């Protein structure tokens, strides 16, 4: 199967064609933004120099190394996206970003943000930080360094960054929420089945 590659700036048409479970790759500019960065952008309305319109955002706090006056990417993998749930909808609205990449699912507010702003959420395999770093061609800029290494706004040039699994699409489908219902039902069944083997209490 041919690799599906998104290139920044990403068009609405490209985003609309994606559905949950699709596997895609990203080429172009990718920026990191996580807890404090989202708060800074949404609550303090501080705007980074790098324009995010049509852009891609990575929930990630990397390990970087300074070599001469250039930053070098050492290791970068996704962080838990759910931590950004509170601000992602507003973030999408004010930045015009088209794809948010992270780990694990996001909630109903982000789903609404994706539908209204024609955007998607995708996951990169968590912990696969060297694979991700090897797909980063260079760090082009670093903003908000006052927040420290994990929280700074790193601007990267990436090539065929992925695999990215679409977890929220523009139709409002949510891969993780759908699965969660199945998991919960299975869990109840499984726990009931083992209960008799765990009746160690004496009375």
């Amino acid at each position, binding site marked *: 199967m041919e690799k599906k590659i998104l290139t920044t700036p990403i068009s609405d048409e490209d985003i609309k064609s994606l559905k949950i*479970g699709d*596997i895609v790759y990203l080429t172009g500019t990718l920026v990191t933004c996580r807890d404090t960065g989202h708060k800074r952008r949404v609550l303090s309305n501080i705007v980074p120099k790098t324009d995010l319109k049509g852009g891609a955002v990575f929930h*990630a*706090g*990397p*390990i970087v*190394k300074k070599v001469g006056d250039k930053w070098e990417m*050492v*290791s*970068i*993998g996704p*962080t*838990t*996206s*759910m931590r950004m749930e509170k601000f992602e909808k507003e973030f999408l609205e004010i930045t015009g970003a088209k794809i948010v990449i992270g*780990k*694990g*699912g996001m909630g109903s507010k982000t789903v609404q943000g994706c539908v209204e702003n024609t955007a998607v959420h995708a*996951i990169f*395999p*968590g*912990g*696969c*930080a*060297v*694979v991700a*770093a*090897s797909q980063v061609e260079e760090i082009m800029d670093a903003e908000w360094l006052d*927040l*420290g*290494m*994990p*929280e700074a706004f790193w601007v990267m040039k990436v090539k065929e960054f992925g*695999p990215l*699994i679409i977890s929220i699409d523009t139709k409002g489908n949510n*891969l*993780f929420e759908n*699965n*969660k219902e*199945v*998991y*919960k039902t*299975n*869990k109840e*069944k*499984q*726990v009931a*089945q*083992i*209960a008799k*083997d*765990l*009746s*160690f*209490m004496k009375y």
Partner: protein
Amino acid sequence: MTLEQKFVDITVKFIDLVAKVLPDDVVGVLSTLRDKETEPMAKAIYESMFENMEKAVSMNRPICQDTGVLQFFLKVGTKFPLIDKLSDMLLEATTVATNTVPLRHNAVETFIEKNTGTNTGKNVPYIEYGIVPNSDKLEMIVYMAGGGCVLPGRSMVMMPSAGYEGIADFVADTMVNWGINACPPLVVGVGIGTCVASAAKLAKKASLRPLGTKNDNAQAHIMEQQLEKALNGIGLGPQGIPGKAGCVLGVNVENMARHPSAMGAAVSFGCWAHRRGTIVFDAKLNYEILDHKNTVL
């Protein structure tokens, strides 16, 4: 070189190893799960994981960018020659390793809310001491866990009427609601004690026990097996997406006697990139690495 310098030097190298190479038992279980998995999305994730482990070695980089807050669990003999200097030496090793590995800056001073940039801060690195009388050896576990698998840890005190079934439900519930984001397949450490603190401490100890080892109480071991079966039956796969092979690397239970009216239960998770290293030193600092065979520092 003084004995202290030698200890710091070896520890820095050991931290480097733990950040870049997973222990043998963890790699073993991951291989089994990868071979058993049939779901295409889940298989793609296992492929990335194994590519990542190879690249971490060939490119000499930490497996995961989140190298955690460094934790050291010590069983130190009262006659180990460097016993009084351990805290200072581990602080130094952490500072050095932060630059040489390199490690991510992960110590944020609370209330000041500022990243120290050194991986050191108040009570960080975290050091837990166990004292072994009449021994001149030191057994040290180095552990680094990312925020992702630290986040879902829970400890609570139940009424004994909840029973062991209640604890199983608590663990499974935590797995489904929060463990899903913690980078499964997970190491699940369960602690059963009296208060939140004792249960949590045992859960952590359980999560650091080698995979494939048993609780020596027969009933506690039944609980380990049954919980593993139940959790693997949820349908959860790697990274929280559906999988057929299972979502746990292992379930370990650690327990203690409890107060008649209280039953503390806790669960502590380790992500698939379970970066645990165990090293044993003798009084001359000859050492043996227990969970990374065929490695030279």
